[in-house]
């Protein structure tokens, strides 16, 4: 037996008994639970949450064979009771039908509606109580991941009973991650209840852990003597130093992710505004169209949400690209070289597009479902977790950027675009159809805006106003990066993102945004052409 179990036994012999009872379910004679099992099941269908909490505790202590299934169903909102007989049922949905399986013996009933049955309602307190009770039962699960989750759940609220149980399991544990978490939990428990001789070891164990409960246990620790107090303080400092380091890494990630969103929104504009010199106020609405395309694609393939996002990327490129070409052909074409008129006309176009979307899809926001593989976070350790959706968007941004650079540098279209933007007359003299190139370039910029819309649909609201919130940021990035330079847009987007996120914890979100704007204004005063000014003859006019 391990040392943990020994201290636990020495200090609280009753606990081991209790844990034994917990394991075997012979708790009835011990009278540890005030409620009998039968009463507890009955109370579940009452409306009083406090009574229900006691019933759940009692069920977990008695631990009959049905307890695990019943608590799990209750957590998922699938535990029902019949209105008349108050018998408990577990609901399963099969197509349009509802199948009610009795918790105890009996025949399953299939119904078309839930009439006659009522859900057992739970609130947050009950939910965490159930999770804790389930975690105790899951400690012996075959799956190491389930065990790990169970220990982590218990860590949130480390109680003596759970500690005693874990002490008896830790030696049999084969998975090192689970064992480490268990050791942390036991150390927390020892610090609180164990005798002084065990404290130094417990502090050392906790110092190596980044867990929040471990940190709090150390903070609340009442050291019996100076040596231990010093040791605990050193442990806290060590954990804090490590946490600070990870917090910096996290801020960096936040910055890059905000930056990639800014860059993504701005790359399209870097082409239409930067390369072609068109001030396109409808750029935001092209992003919005991309987001709505994602929504429509998800409506068309409700069974394959995971795949829908991948389909949406090219679809949004095409849809927004076509809308862009239509805008270029119908409006902008007539206004080349008249920036003020272009600005006003495209602003009008943006209002028309917004109201069109409002009429087709209603002014309400639409929901784009985040696919499973993009939700949640990549848990690197206890304090540092990178959210998957942001992570993929950074990668997506880089991919779009590289693809665009390749198009501009390696394809005929790219060559012609560059030629037209540098010297329109000369390019025409060389046989380039400048009108055709204009339309395609604008379409390319618009299409990339559409792809940005796919990414944004996963982060924010898909609504008619989506574009408005990004248009100013996009212009900011392009101007800061240097008009006409794609690299500028990327570097500017990323650096603005990082600056913003570094300022935010210190200045607050509102002030951070203002400071960034002030910074850009000052920067433009000093270097009017942005980070990467265009050189050569073309830039001189």
């Amino acid at each position, binding site marked *: 037996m391990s040392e943990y179990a020994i201290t636990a036994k020495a200090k609280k012999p009753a606990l081991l008994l209790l844990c034994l009872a917990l394991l075997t379910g012979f708790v009835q004679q011990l009278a540890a639970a005030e409620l009998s099992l039968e009463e507890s099941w009955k109370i579940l269908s009452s409306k009083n*949450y406090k009574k229900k909490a006691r019933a759940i505790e009692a069920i977990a202590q008695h631990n009959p064979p049905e307890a695990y299934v019943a608590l799990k169903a209750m957590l998922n*909102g699938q535990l029902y009771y019949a209105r008349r007989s108050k018998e408990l049922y577990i609901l399963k949905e099969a197509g349009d039908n509802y199948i009610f399986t009795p918790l105890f013996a009996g025949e399953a009933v299939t119904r078309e509606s839930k009439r006659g049955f009522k859900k057992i*309602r739970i*609130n*947050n*307190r009950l*939910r*965490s109580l159930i*999770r804790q009770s389930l975690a105790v039962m899951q400690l012996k699960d075959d799956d190491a991941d389930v065990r790990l989750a169970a220990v982590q759940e218990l860590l*949130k609220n480390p109680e003596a009973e759970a500690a005693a149980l874990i002490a008896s399991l830790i030696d049999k544990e084969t998975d090192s991650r689970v064992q480490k978490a268990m050791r942390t939990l036991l150390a927390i428990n020892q610090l609180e209840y164990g005798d002084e001789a065990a404290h130094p070891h417990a502090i050392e164990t906790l110092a190596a852990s980044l867990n*929040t*409960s471990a*940190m*709090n246990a150390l*903070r*609340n620790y009442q050291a019996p003597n100076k040596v231990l107090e010093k040791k605990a303080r050193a442990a806290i400092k060590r954990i804090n130093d490590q946490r600070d380091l990870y*917090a910096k890494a*996290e*801020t960096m990630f*936040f910055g890059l*992710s*905000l930056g990639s*969103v800014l860059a993504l929104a701005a790359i399209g504009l870097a082409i239409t505004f930067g390369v072609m010199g068109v001030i396109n106020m409808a750029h935001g609405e092209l992003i919005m169209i991309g987001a709505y395309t994602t929504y429509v694609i998800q409506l068309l393939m409700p069974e394959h949400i995971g795949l829908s996002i991948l389909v949406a990327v090219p679809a949004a490129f095409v849809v927004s690209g076509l809308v862009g070409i239509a805008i270029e052909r119908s409006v902008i074409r007539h206004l080349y070289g008249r920036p003020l008129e272009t600005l006003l006309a495209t602003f009008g176009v943006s209002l028309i597009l917004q*109201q069109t979307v*409002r009429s087709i899809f*209603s*002014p*309400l*926001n*639409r*929901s784009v*479902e*985040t696919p499973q593989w993009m*939700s*949640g*976070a990549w*848990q690197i350790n206890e304090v540092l*977790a990178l*959210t*998957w*959706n*942001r992570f993929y968007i950074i990668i997506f941004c880089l991919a779009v950027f590289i693809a665009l650079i390749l198009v501009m540098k390696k394809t005929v279209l790219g060559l012609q675009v560059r030629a037209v933007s540098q010297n329109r007359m000369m390019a025409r003299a060389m046989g380039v159809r400048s009108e055709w190139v204009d339309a395609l370039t604008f379409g390319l910029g618009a299409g990339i805006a559409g792809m940005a819309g796919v990414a944004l649909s996963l*982060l*924010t*609201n*898909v*609504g*008619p*106003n989506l574009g408005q*919130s990004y248009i100013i940021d996009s212009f900011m990035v392009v101007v800061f990066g240097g008009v006409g330079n794609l690299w500028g847009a990327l570097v500017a987007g990323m650096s603005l993102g990082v600056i913003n*996120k570094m300022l*935010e*914890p210190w200045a*607050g*979100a*509102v002030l951070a*945004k203002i400071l960034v704007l002030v910074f850009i204004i000052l920067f433009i005063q000093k270097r009017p052409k942005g980070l990467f000014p265009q050189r050569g003859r073309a830039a001189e006019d």
Partner: protein
Amino acid sequence: MTTKKLKKMAIAALLAASSLAGTTLAWAGDTIKIGVLHSLSGTMAISETTLKDTMLMLIAEQNKKGGVLGKKLEAVVVDPASNWPLFAEKARELISKDKVDVVFGCWTSVSRKSVLPVFEELNSILFYPVQYEGEESSKNVFYTGAAPNQQAIPAVDYLMNEVGVKRWVLAGTDYVYPRTTNKILKAYLMAKGVKKKDIMINYTPFGHSDWQSIVSEIKKFGSAGKKTAVVSTINGDANIPFYKELANQGISAEDIPVVAFSVGEEELSGLDTKPLVGHLAAWNYFMSVESDENEEFIENWHKFIKNKKRVTNDPMEAHYIGFNMWVKAVEKAGTTDPKVVQDALIGVTVPNLSGGYSAMMPNHHITKPVLIGEIQKNGQFDIVWETSGLVPGDAWSDYLPGSRDLISDWRAPLSCGNYNVKTKKCSGQNY
């Protein structure tokens, strides 16, 4: 559409002509006109369009019952386009040109502040259906939404007493409603013995979409070993990315519950609610309330809007209560003259949708129950707590210095919106 407009213009022209001729009976006609002042375009259209539809439904139903005072009701709908100065212009147009007898409208506090002088100058009536920050009482405005003591304070009480919250994050959008509400809440929490270091206040710009660092800060703030909750006055659009980020960073409602004052069924209908289960909202009405009135209301709403999936929400109930109060007051007074109806409205009691009655009080606020609901998978709320009785709306908060001594009573002879009980003086302001 055009014929309707022409007709409207013709009537307006007729009325204008008649008022030019010096008749005082400008409101007497074949129909009684009701102004609907909600944005149908722009940023607020998302919330306000539904309220316009609610008003049209209520008016259509009343007409089926034979109208009011034997006359048909006619809705005059205008679109202030989420543009605050335009609200004032449109309000003036409704009252002076269209000669409406009452206006139902506004959502944001800034739009209400913008129309207020117009209503006071022309002495008309506005029913304002949205929860707001209080600290206002106008002779011409009837507040059917919740004052802070009908939403924010009970929600905090619930968290403190039932959930055992010890540390508080007050997060809001940076404008008048969250700032005032948070000021009241902070004063209230400190009065209850919460220390300053256990309160974190955070403001974000309108439509904020990048919540990463704020959520991470909240997570850090909440990991100090004391139960932490977020009290959110985050407005409309910014909520969805906020909740998405909470879910992605793995903060569940059991760890750090968020109680929101601006998130209702309508806002959730545009959202995948699975990760939000257990987060809270405080309102005076939820669609899931079990009462006969509510069932009938939902049925009528689905019939009217021809879409079974549309949800109902708290401001809709506020319009339901406000409209019925106005009808009752007009019938009591026997006229639609705003000056008379203003007095008749005080004391009027009508059924609300949660199975009880709401009464209009002398301070132009109403009595309502306060409900706390937890978000469910289907985008509805499970009611987990409610006040034992009705809570009367308080125009002036008891927790702020300066407003503590003020009361509002629009009955004669006091007839004052901000009477100071200490100095025994009415400050003389109209609101």
